[in-house]
């Protein structure tokens, strides 16, 4: 699209000269965003319907998706990655968000000392890059260095230590918890902001009725911050189904051991670029990206049109 087309949109029926400045203000953002983000997204979706047939790129309809869902070799990888990704998301919802809410609830109590310090310190991991986070935890959990076993020895739990990242049964949980550790800051901050926005009168009225402490949190505050919990959940969903970096830095592109930490992002990377003796495959890469797009779109749509509509909002 070009400038003239934007200008078309704004020719208002009211008789006045074309307001070129609106087009000038909108054009740079519109052009960069469309050219680098929207068109490639559409092109990727389109590519997922094409594949190389007899050396030529040809339209193949949905057969790429059939291969992805049904072909014995590739589909096993895909369903494995999808299942791991769902588990990855569930662990975030069960651990990251409740812990974030709990910390925010404690921080927002009136008159708590050092609240600013706790808040800043707990947010630090969120700022670090995956490379740092992934490698630090790899070292800490490594049996060679022995930080984790010796710390567990302090509390008498040495017997429980295992090289979690190296075992297929526990690796996914370990990686998910590392990601939770890194991202707890986001639910904490958003929920904290929501809790601060609850007017004092509401809480005072509750106190007059004898509702304090725990029951105040469950009966008054929690219903009021539900919209923020909804936003946090959808952000977690989008982030998790788009994740790649942490698994890549901790377990490598193969997402080992034995594919046990493979998620859609790492599968996309391997399929698109190839690894070791497998060739990169652009069409199948685009197909996986298209599936990820549809999953994320479904999640966001579910939130926007079902959950958000039903949620009761309170106006103060």
């Amino acid at each position, binding site marked *: 699209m070009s400038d003239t087309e934007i200008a078309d949109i704004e020719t208002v029926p009211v008789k006045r000269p074309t307001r070129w400045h609106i087009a000038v203000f909108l054009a740079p953002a519109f052009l960069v965003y469309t050219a680098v983000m*929207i068109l490639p997204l559409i092109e990727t979706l389109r590519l997922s319907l094409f594949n190389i047939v007899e050396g030529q790129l040809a339209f193949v309809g949905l057969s790429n998706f059939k291969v992805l869902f049904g072909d014995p070799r590739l589909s096993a990888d895909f369903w494995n990655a999808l299942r791991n990704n769902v588990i990855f998301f569930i662990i975030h919802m069960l651990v990251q968000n409740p812990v974030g809410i709990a910390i925010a609830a404690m921080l927002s109590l009136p008159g708590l000392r050092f609240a600013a310090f706790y808040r800043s310190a707990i947010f630090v991991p969120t*700022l670090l890059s995956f490379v740092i986070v992934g490698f630090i935890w790899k070292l800490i959990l490594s049996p060679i260095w022995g930080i984790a076993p010796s710390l567990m020895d302090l509390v008498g739990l040495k017997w429980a230590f295992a090289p979690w990242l190296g075992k297929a049964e526990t690796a996914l949980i370990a990686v998910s918890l590392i990601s939770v550790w890194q991202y707890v800051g986001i639910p904490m*901050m958003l929920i904290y902001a929501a809790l601060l926005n609850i007017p004092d009168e509401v809480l005072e009225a509750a106190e007059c009725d004898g509702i304090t402490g725990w029951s105040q949190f469950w009966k008054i505050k929690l219903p009021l911050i539900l919209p923020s919990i909804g936003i946090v959940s959808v952000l977690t969903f989008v982030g998790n189904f*788009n994740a790649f970096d942490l698994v890549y830095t901790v377990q490598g592109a193969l997402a080992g051991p034995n594919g046990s930490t493979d998620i859609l992002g790492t599968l996309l990377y391997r399929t698109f670029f190839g690894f070791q003796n497998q060739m990169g495959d652009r069409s199948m890469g685009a197909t996986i990206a298209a599936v990820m797009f549809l999953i994320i779109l479904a999640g966001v749509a579910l939130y926007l049109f079902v959950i958000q509509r039903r949620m009761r909002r309170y106006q103060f």
Partner: protein
Amino acid sequence: MSKARSAPVRAAFIHLALIAYTLVALFPVFLTLVNSFKSRSAIFSQPMALPTPSTFSLIGYQTVLQQGDFVGYFQNSLIVTVASIALVLLFGAMAAFALSEYRFRGNTLMGLYLALGIMIPIRLGTVAILQGMVAAGLVNTLTSLILVYTAQGLPLAIFILSEFMRTVSDDLKSAGRIDGLSEYAIFFRLVLPLVRPAMATVAVFTMIPIWNDLWFPLILAPGESTKTVTLGAQMFIGQFVTNWNAVLSALSLAILPVMVLYVIFSRQLIRGITSGAVK
């Protein structure tokens, strides 16, 4: 139980819980920084001790500075991040101004279109982005990264900035128009200075994912001369897995700039989040 007695007990428990979690959050960072200044044997024998004169060593940092071109990586990251933020802020503010100031046909539609990218990650278009960058001859250039990050940052920037621009007083702009200021002058000389706090918030939000990104540098600019710090550290670690001094020093060097920026901007960042800029 009387209220006077239960309150301090409750406060003590809350502090205990928060201190415990703060330790969990900071311990890995502390561990890395402390051990990067120790000799190899001390890293293994007393991993949790602070460096003493007998165990202090800078051998890790020497290896990093000799082997990897970290100064160059740092420079690349800085160029990419600063240029992307500048473009996001300029283009984002201009678009936000158009959307919040003027009523024109398609305004809502344009707003929704530009907001799509808040929820849909740009990463899903990677296959076609790489193809486009190859066609444009931009692979292994910093320009390709700057373009991608600008597109990635724009949706949220436009969303936040247009919320703020709606709060700028109409009287001020009308006064400007009566005085004969052009629309451009109104934007650059009246509105932009007033939304500076919001711009700072947007800058911080935009900066963190750009600085830390591994995906696009890995795919679009993996060449030695265009590596960013994040990618450079990742590659370096891959090569020196067994040289723990070097690895820990490289990690510390990668943490440092983020921490410095956080200390400078943390108030801005937290104020931005808690004032509802991202709701």
